[in-house]
């Protein structure tokens, strides 16, 4: 960022692993940690994001990690932006109290009503539907960041044979729990939203729930693997989840009364 703010790079110092700082408007700084879709670059970005968030710097109102960068947003009505690089520098290279990454096994019912695009993906990739499922469920994925909609885990890299551009006509309504692919990413629609990815299956797992203490069940840095299940097992898991949620709600209600 020496291009537009000579003092920035020097003020922050070399304690951090970021490679560049880019101005993102007068109330944002984009810290870049490398290039491309790379687990090491992403891990550095996530560690920095955790450190900045944990520091609770007054006036900083958003710390959003992406694949290879972290956007730090602040309110210049509350903090002098000229002081901010110094405040970030004061954090030093100290790593945040690390949250251990978790591994999630996501049950998925592939194809049929649950995955209406499976056949289309199969014909577009020249694979049999079974082969698409085998490839998709045959490896682990890193959760690079959450975004697009609340709790949506952006996971990569998808096996090369499955990479397709997004649908030319996005759907206005994608059912909650839809497991989808696009480009070199795969993900889960945590809520019913619009969406342009190819829907190949659906999970009964509750990925995101407003009002739950930890709204997002899957966090950046976690790994996920998809486990194919039949419709019967899908329904069993969905029923159990519904019961658990009702119990949790009743407990909450009980605490109030």
């Amino acid at each position, binding site marked *: 960022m020496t291009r*537009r*703010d000579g003092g920035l790079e020097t003020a922050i110092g070399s304690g951090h692993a970021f490679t560049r700082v*880019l*101005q*993102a*408007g*007068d*109330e*944002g700084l*984009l810290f870049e940690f490398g290039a*491309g*879709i790379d687990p090491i670059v992403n891990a550095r970005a996530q560690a920095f*994001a955790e450190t900045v*968030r944990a520091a609770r710097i007054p006036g900083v*109102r*958003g*710390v*959003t*990690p*992406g*694949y*290879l*960068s*972290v*956007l730090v*947003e602040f309110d*210049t*009505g509350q903090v002098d*932006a000229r002081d901010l690089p110094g405040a970030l520098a004061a954090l030093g290279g100290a790593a945040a109290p690390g949250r251990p990454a978790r591994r999630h096994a996501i049950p998925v019912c592939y194809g049929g009503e649950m995955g209406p695009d499976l056949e289309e993906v199969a014909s577009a990739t020249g694979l049999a539907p079974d082969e698409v499922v085998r490839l998709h469920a045959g490896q682990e994925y890193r959760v*690079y*960041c*959450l*975004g*697009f*909609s*609340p*709790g*949506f885990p*952006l996971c990569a890299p998808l096996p090369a044979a499955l990479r397709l551009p997004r649908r030319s006509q996005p759907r206005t309504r994608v059912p909650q729990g839809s497991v989808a692919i696009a*480009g070199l990413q795969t993900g889960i629609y945590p*809520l019913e*939203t*619009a969406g342009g990815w190819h829907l190949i299956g659906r999970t009964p797992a509750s990925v*995101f729930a*407003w*009002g739950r203490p930890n*709204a*997002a069940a899957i966090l*950046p840095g976690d790994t996920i693997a998809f486990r194919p299940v039949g419709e019967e097992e899908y329904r069993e898991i969905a029923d159990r989840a519904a019961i658990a949620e009702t119990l949790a709600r009743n407990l909450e209600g009980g605490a109030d009364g």
Partner: protein
Amino acid sequence: MARLNIVRPGMLTTVQDIGRYGQGHLGVPQQGALDPYALRWALRLAGAGRGDAALEITLLGPVIEVQGACFAALAGAELGAQLNGVPWRTGTSQRLRPGDLLTFRAPAEGLRAYLAFRGGVAGDLVLGSRATDLQSGIGGHHGRALRAGDVLEVGDGQGEPAAAPVPTAILRESLRVLPGPRDDLFPEGALRQLTSAPYRVTPEADRVGMRLVGPEVPGAPGDIPSEGIPLGGIEILPSGQPIVLLQGRGSVGGYPVLATVISADVPALAQLRPGSRLRFEVASLAAARLAREEMERSLALPLHPLP
């Protein structure tokens, strides 16, 4: 508490506060008032708290019947508000009585106005904010725009009628931008093209962003690995046309941001109607900071008491 009967909802009326900040790492959008300057004036004139919610009114205002005494302020666009048939100028506060009828006639200028109450507007508090998120269906009044028949609770605190000493809507068609953060992914001349001639706001403009039509920006690199998108970020779509992202934007996006509207000009974006013209001009970081300081100073000016 006093109550508001929503007789007619208007084009798009939602409960908004200053925004749902600090949840971007969970993929939760910021939301909140699209014109934070007008919201802050409305809250201040009403004697409400800075974190209180107000009603964001879009172009064609609602018809509201007031139940219970309360104290309210209007700020932002001049949308032809009338209280019991008497014009209610934007940028002023007044006492409301039970049975008062608030209507909106022809909108004169601007797009969004804010109606605030002493004691705030009640709404669902989600992750620290009452802002309505229409995409997710959470916050505010049941996560949706107001409908006819809705009843809203508002504070019943009283106050002294006053007027803002300056206009509470910033209307300008020239918007200042800072280059980046991803200007280096574009060929030289892309920024020059963006600032060369006016753009027009298309009908595809909502709380998420405004699609523009005008000079095609050459060499858009297409998708990039998703990353945080700043407020006012101007993404260039593969077609070469820009989209300016507002408070309802997703926390991350996959199109590169060529330039970012400065924070002092974000309120002006929120007042541009579909079809209106705008142009971008490059500013320095120092100029952006100065403009923002001026805005903060103006928000702190003393109010003018009204008889």
